[in-house]
């Protein structure tokens, strides 16, 4: 009984460790904002979403992305039904709180454990039936491989016949007519190897026994006041029920773990739905991205937007159209606060969401899968910093280098700005050069004019130079235009703005 909504061939694994660069990536791309919108106050959804995006900053798998996009299409087509299904699973999981057994309060007595497990499973089985009924209703209209597999699996494994079998077992397990155990003789002729039986055979009546037409049996009764005897008897029953009580307790664990897995896998899509509805409500253009394999150097988008900015501003921000097919480097220079960092972030977040199998915040998007997403951003001055800021930047770069591979996406925001322009330029060029030679795509924002000039001067045409626009009156359009770097960055404009003309 598998869910397989997130992966075509395996379960969601909550215990996967984060890729080493994740902490920086999450901070630099402001993923927290995204997660909060996905979770909508459900800490479980926050957890699942964080997990999936964390995995997304590693290498992407085309089959997984396609699988999820298919599922997402179904989800976006049937949002209310998916939310209802998710709510049903949550209700199933919460139902165990009504049972002592469900809260983990089992004890040393198998007969008590068995009773508790039977009751809990009775409740669970009813939820399984309701799930199956939902599958019946939805199976026809969901087209993705993911959901089709889920529904057909539910229909096959929780058929009416199965439900009847389970009910019959749950009834037998109440042992209303006594417990039947078989045993052998061990050391000192003590009983050993107890085996429980369902006692299904017809019991011969007293007449048959009288006429010796039935196999021999001998009965005795404990006297009413025999407490020691009653205790001995109940311990005997406990020994006999030990294994089946264990099996039933484990069965409740199995079913519960199935519900929890289903919750995680459905939960991710509910979180995507939350985000989609939020962003769409703000007027942000969204689409399911097309993608090619790593190394195709594809990157082309219409109205690409930074979704975290949208969530913060609570309106659709200015988007950018990018034509970077065949480019191994995209370099952005230009006016302060002109939208450069925002652009960088929109590229990074889109790549993450693509890897995660989600939609992206653009009206159209065709990209490529990467072997990992890496960020190297300028950090704030830290009074407690040991060594210089440059030391810290170089150390971070060294750590990143350990994980960089061909096909990675490297995002740099004002790297090496902590030293003078000449040195900084040299450092930056060396890094960028090396990465590009190793077939790593670089997208960067910089004020280092020297570096920018040399990047733009390359004859092979593999670099795209973009500039943050500054209008005549000094205001920003927040759009990037194609163009070489300009010498100054118009700090004068800002100064005037802040200090008054």
């Amino acid at each position: 009984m598998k869910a397989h909504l997130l992966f075509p061939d395996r379960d969601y694994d909550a215990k996967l460790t984060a890729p080493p660069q994740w902490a920086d990536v999450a901070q630099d791309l402001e993923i927290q904002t995204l997660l909060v919108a996905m979770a909508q106050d459900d800490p479980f959804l926050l957890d699942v979403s964080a997990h999936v995006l964390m995995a997304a900053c590693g290498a992407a798998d085309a089959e997984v992305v396609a699988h999820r996009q298919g599922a997402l299409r179904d989800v976006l087509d049937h949002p209310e039904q998916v939310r209802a299904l998710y709510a049903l699973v949550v209700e199933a999981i919460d139902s165990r709180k009504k049972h002592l057994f469900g809260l983990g309060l089992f004890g040393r007595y198998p007969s008590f454990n068995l009773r508790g497990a039977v009751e809990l499973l009775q409740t669970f089985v009813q939820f399984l039936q309701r799930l199956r009924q939902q599958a019946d209703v939805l199976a026809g209209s969901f087209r993705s491989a993911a959901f089709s597999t889920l529904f057909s699996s539910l229909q096959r494994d929780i058929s009416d016949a199965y439900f009847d079998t389970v009910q019959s077992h749950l009834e037998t397990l109440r042992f209303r007519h006594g417990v039947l155990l078989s045993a052998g003789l061990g050391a000192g002729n003590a009983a050993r190897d107890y085996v429980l039986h369902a006692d299904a055979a017809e019991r011969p009546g007293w007449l048959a026994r009288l006429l010796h037409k039935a196999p021999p049996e001998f009965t005795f009764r404990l006297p009413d006041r025999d407490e020691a005897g009653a205790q001995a008897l109940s311990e005997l029953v406990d020994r006999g029920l030990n294994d089946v009580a264990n099996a039933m307790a484990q069965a409740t664990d199995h079913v519960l773990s199935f519900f929890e897995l289903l919750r995680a896998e459905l939960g991710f899509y509910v979180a995507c739905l939350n985000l989609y509805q939020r962003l769409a409500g703000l007027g942000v253009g969204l689409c399911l991205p097309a993608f090619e394999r790593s190394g195709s150097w594809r990157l082309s988008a219409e109205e690409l937007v930074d979704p975290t900015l949208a969530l913060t501003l609570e309106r659709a921000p200015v988007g950018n159209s990018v034509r970077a097919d065949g480019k191994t480097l995209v370099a952005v220079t230009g006016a302060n606060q002109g939208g450069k960092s925002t652009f960088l972030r929109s590229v990074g977040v889109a790549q993450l969401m693509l890897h995660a199998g989600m939609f992206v915040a653009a009206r159209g998007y065709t990209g490529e899968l990467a072997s990992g997403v890496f960020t190297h951003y300028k950090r704030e001055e830290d009074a407690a910093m040991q060594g210089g800021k440059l030391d810290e930047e170089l150390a971070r770069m060294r750590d990143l280098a350990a994980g960089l591979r061909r096909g990675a996406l490297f995002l740099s925001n004002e790297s090496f700005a902590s030293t003078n322009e000449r040195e900084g330029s040299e450092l930056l060029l060396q890094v960028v050069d090396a990465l590009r030679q190793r077939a790593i795509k670089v997208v960067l924002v910089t004020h280092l004019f020297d570096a920018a000039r040399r990047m733009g001067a390359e004859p092979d045409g593999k670099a795209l130079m973009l500039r943050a626009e500054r209008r005549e009156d000094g205001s920003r359009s927040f759009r990037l235009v194609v163009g070489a770097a300009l010498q100054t960055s118009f700090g004068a404009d800002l100064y005037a703005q802040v200090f008054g003309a």
Partner: protein
Amino acid sequence: MNDPATTPLESPRASGSAPTAFYSIVYPSAQHEAAAVPQDLAAVFHDLFLQSIFDTVYANFLPREQPAYFVASRSDDEAPYRAEVLQILQSLFRTPLQDPDVVRYRQDALRDLQQPALLRAAQRFQQALRDMREHLRRADKAYNAIEGQRWFVDAVLTYGHALQALHQALDAAEVQSQAWLAVRAHLAQLLDSDAQRVRLQQAQALVDDLGRLRYAVRIDGTAVTVLRDPAEPDYTAIIADTFARFRQGEVKDYRTQFAAPAGLNHVEGQILDRVALLFPEVFDRLARFRREHDGFAEDRVLRLDRELAWYVSWLDATQRLSRAGLPVCFPRLTTQQGQIDARDAYDMALARQRIDAQQPVVLNDFALLGQERMIVVTGPNHGGKTTLARTFGQLHHLAALGLTVAARSASLLLFDRLFTHFERVEDIHNQRGKLQDDLVRMHHILRDATDRSVVLMNEIFSSTTIDDALWLARRIMQRLSEIGAACVFVTFLDELATFDAHTVSMVGTVDADDPTIRTFKVVRRAADGKSYALALARKFGVTREQLLERIPV
């Protein structure tokens, strides 16, 4: 010319000699046992630390402390057995052998048992008999007759298998001692006997048949019904199967652990009684077996089990010494004086303490060869003199028990009696009484000692003046010289070291650089006449000159 009195006792190669009937593993025959008379050696054991050695080696058989009242009381059912064995061991330990044949008998048995495979087999044999005793106890204590009968059968089986296993091990090992060869023959005889064969067969058949039985019990409220196995499938498996489809991974084990019960309670007993009604044939056989085979364990086998401890515990203790790098050997024994020669010997009790404290053990030689009869040991206090005397005594006594001794090699006297006269701590006001006691004890020794005796004296006559002590000591030494016993005399009276032609002088040595440091090496050398006390005083700055300098006029 073969003089049996001077020929050292070697162990003969046993091949070719017909094994004699097995009697015991510590005595070749009943007559040999009757001839060995235990002695009252409490004082000797105290002086030579032999009691401490016994208590350490045979610690397992000493009575256990009662647990504190707050510890759940557990009945110690093996206690009577251990007490029996302790008695046997104590008796053996205080019976130094006079007959070289018995010494050889035991040494050979011990030598064989040093083979690891045979030692393991002996230990397993002991464990098996312990199990048998446990089964017999449960057979006795059982409230339900059928339960008791079953334990009895298990006891018979355990016993039979123990005999087989030990016999097999003896066959496989290369045993050469008269003792073990006799055991092997005895076991073969037992195992071959009709009685044992039939009994074992019946027991095995019973256990097999009972093991194959299956019955069923239905419990409905207070009604318990015993019936034949319904041959229905295992319902637990069906349940597990039904829910297997939801399994995602490993889950907890919720099974309850049940404590092993001490016996059947009365409900189980009633069920068992009815199971017997379902299968009357087997259970009748069981009851009959119990009636017919009481007293199945053979006396000599039971005795072997008890006496094995004598060797096994000794081996264990001496192997610990070997592992610490100390030598252990089989001594050669003679009944003639003038052949005592031990190399790298040490005090076993002291060695155990030093090993525990991870300190080194000093090894010493001693000898009384040819005409030599008395070693006079002098030297600094606490320099190892008394230890040497103890070592001499320990080696001799343990050799006379047929055991290995704490030395690299040893040729020793098989004495008729061993006397010790060690200083007793006395009341300081009773000076005259102490001297009198010393003399009375000495008088008894001189009366009973022969030219085959060993006499050990430690710091006697220390409660009187030096002149008196010298005078008395010389008289005593004269008497001992006439008797011809082997003696060790530890004393501070250096003058005695050159008493007569039979006297050997040994001296405790000190460190060459710092005379206040003892080496614990005692060597053959003329007495020093040095006063070590002065060197010590100098070290602490309290010689006369030093004091005169320190104290102002």
